[in-house]
């Protein structure tokens, strides 16, 4: 079994800081191989399609501006959505936080006397920890996405927001299905396993009268809800039951139906490297005779409005959950999602999770990046993730300064001292001389440093450091012979 020693914790209020959470994952060879393979597959497909799309940058620009415009006018567009959805026969609820959202959903299920519910994959429901809450209330929750079934039956956590079970091998899936579906004869061929999932779910789709979904987009103009999927379980959940509850972050709204012409093009290419995903469904409220007659939308704040108020950070909410950023991220490539301690991993998770927590938790996530910028390059809505990462780091430092915490960490002490040294040439030069002398203690005969104490030890645990040269550049320049002139030309 590949699994890193313990079940990963995706609750930012109790998860380990990134650099610690990453350790067991880095030692998990199967997980790292699976993550790299999954990323390579999607990236290759995406790359090909983006290259063929001559108006890709124009689409990105339009997508970014549409999303930015919505966020600036979110109140108006949400109210419009609510009015149209209600007029079309839907019920719209507003939840300030996770607890309220869970209660609203449970209330709806109770009034329907629903003891079972089928679910389409929605990260938002994982964000509010809905499943355990409903289970504790005696409601059986059946995930219907293949990856979510694998995770649910195998009692595991998602590691990616589009391909959540990418860290699991076919033989592990076989084991999970064989045991929980009572089918020991199953082979590990992906087709066979998929057929097993189809059989397992068929009766559930037909029999269970309540479903919970997320929403990819809410259309203000029509009160419509759009869901983008590949497997068809979405269509099953959206069409067959009597009651449908769609849980959506407040930021999911688009102004008009036609805005989908931009968003659907960028989403499919970014998320799965396809021109269009297999099934996209859109419905406005209730249509008599077709689909759920009891339809509810639960709009979720849960920290989003606080991000909305920050001019620089507002762009975080443009996110359409395509996961292109984590597919492009060289850090994510090595660690997969579990190290981020949140249902939102990767670059978007590194900026979204701490902000949803109002920086009370997940303060290590903004540092879980080498600031390479690959995420910004691929983001279909042009979220400048590196800029926000740096800004969040500044906020974390300010927070630590006010609280007086972390100020004595060796790195922070070193940084503050360096700040003073850089402010004066005299101090800087003196520090260089002292550093040069001090470094000799650690410099070996080959002229390199192989081992350093404290923070330096984090460098030397895997790298050497060349010893300090006898002269700084400045010292050489000030003492050099007459300049070269035209020699060598």
């Amino acid at each position: 079994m590949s699994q890193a020693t313990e079940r990963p914790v995706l609750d930012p209020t109790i998860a380990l800081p990134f650099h610690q959470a990453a350790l067991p994952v880095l030692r998990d060879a199967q997980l790292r191989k699976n993550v790299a393979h999954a990323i390579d597959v999607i990236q290759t497909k995406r790359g090909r399609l983006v290259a063929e799309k001559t108006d890709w940058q124009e689409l990105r620009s339009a997508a970014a501006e549409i999303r930015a415009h919505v966020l600036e006018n979110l109140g108006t567009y949400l109210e419009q959505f609510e009015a149209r959805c209600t007029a079309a026969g839907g019920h719209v609820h507003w939840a300030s936080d996770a607890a309220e959202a869970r209660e609203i959903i449970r209330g709806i299920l109770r009034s329907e006397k629903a003891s079972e519910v089928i679910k389409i994959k929605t990260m938002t429901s994982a964000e509010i920890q809905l499943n355990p809450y409903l289970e504790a209330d005696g409601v059986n929750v059946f995930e219907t996405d293949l990856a979510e079934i694998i995770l649910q039956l195998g009692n595991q956590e998602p590691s990616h927001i589009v391909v959540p079970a990418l860290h699991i091998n076919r033989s592990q899936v076989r084991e999970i299905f064989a045991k929980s579906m009572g089918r020991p004869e199953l082979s590990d061929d992906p087709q066979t396993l998929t057929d097993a999932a189809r059989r397992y779910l068929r009766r559930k789709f037909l029999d269970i009268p309540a479903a919970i979904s997320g929403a990819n987009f809410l259309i203000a103009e029509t009160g419509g809800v759009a869901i983008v999927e590949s497997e068809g379980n979405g269509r099953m959940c959206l069409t067959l039951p009597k009651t449908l509850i769609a849980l959506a972050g407040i930021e999911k709204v688009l102004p008009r139906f036609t805005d989908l012409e931009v968003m659907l093009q960028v989403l499919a290419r970014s998320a799965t490297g396809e021109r269009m995903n297999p099934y996209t469904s859109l419905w406005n409220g209730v249509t008599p005779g077709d689909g759920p007659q009891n339809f509810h939308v639960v709009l979720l704040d849960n920290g989003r409005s606080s991000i909305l108020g920050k001019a620089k950070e507002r762009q975080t909410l443009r996110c359409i959950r395509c996961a292109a950023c984590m597919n492009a991220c060289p850090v994510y490539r090595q660690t997969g999602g579990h190290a981020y301690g949140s249902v939102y991993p990767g670059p978007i998770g590194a900026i979204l999770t701490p902000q949803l927590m109002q920086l009370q938790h997940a303060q290590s996530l903004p540092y879980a990046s080498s600031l390479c910028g690959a995420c910004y390059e691929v983001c279909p809505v042009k979220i400048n993730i590196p800029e926000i990462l740096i800004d969040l780091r500044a906020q974390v430092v300010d927070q630590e300064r006010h609280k007086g915490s972390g100020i004595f960490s060796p790195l922070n002490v070193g940084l503050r001292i360096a700040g003073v040294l850089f402010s004066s040439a005299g101090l800087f030069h003196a520090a260089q001389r002292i550093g040069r002398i001090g470094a000799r203690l650690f410099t070996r005969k080959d002229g390199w440093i192989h081992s350093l104490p404290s923070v330096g030890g984090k460098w030397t645990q895997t790298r050497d450091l060349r010893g300090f040269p006898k002269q700084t550049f400045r010292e050489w320049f000030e003492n050099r012979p007459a300049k070269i002139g035209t020699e060598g030309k």
Partner: protein
Amino acid sequence: MRASLFITCYNDTLFPETGRAVVFLLERLGVDLEFHPKQTCCGQMHANTGFRTEAFSQAKRLVQMYADAENVVIPSSSCVAMMRDQYPGLFDELGNQSLRSDFAALLPRVYELSEFLIDKLGVEDVGAYFPHRVTYHASCHGLRAIQLGDRPFRLLQKVRGLDFAPLPNLDRCCGFGGTFSVKNAEVSSAMMTAKLQDVLSTKAEFCTALDNSCLMHLGGAMHREFAGMKTIHMAQILASTEKSPMEAFA
């Protein structure tokens, strides 16, 4: 043509040979080079770690120091990126009108080394001779932040005797990331190992780049692992001639 060299804090202290190479190279090309002895740091390390006030005071100092420079040349794309991407925000937030206009006047005169050679001096063939197999690593700041494009390749192509080996997965970060290399040392090392695989697969003798930061990280691993490859800043390749090979300014 006059230019003022901003050597960068880490080049000054740890890679003076890169600075020497820049001097040899630019003076050979007829540039009248000056060096302000009181320079320290651009503030990037502090800005990227969240210490904005410290970063700002270094930025202010730099802008004031180079107010009269005809051109500023910097052999480090990350420092140039710092000035282009983060200085505006720092000065908007913490500076005043006079500082902001000084900065705005300075910025167009700031060049990364390959930008200075190709855009300002208009040369691709700098008269270099470097008979070795070389691969080029594109640092993320050079690649994405200041978008050097094909400048490094055009310069290397004109170096006589140089056997160029393209690097697979060129656009993937090496894992240095400044303080990331110690704050998330294990992940940084995992990224470094992946990068090293690509670099070593080129069977080059040297891995070059326009930033010693990445090279310090990759070179440190190469040395630890007896990998049989070395790192060298591109300035040292470009400064190298038959008469003055790279050892001349090492």
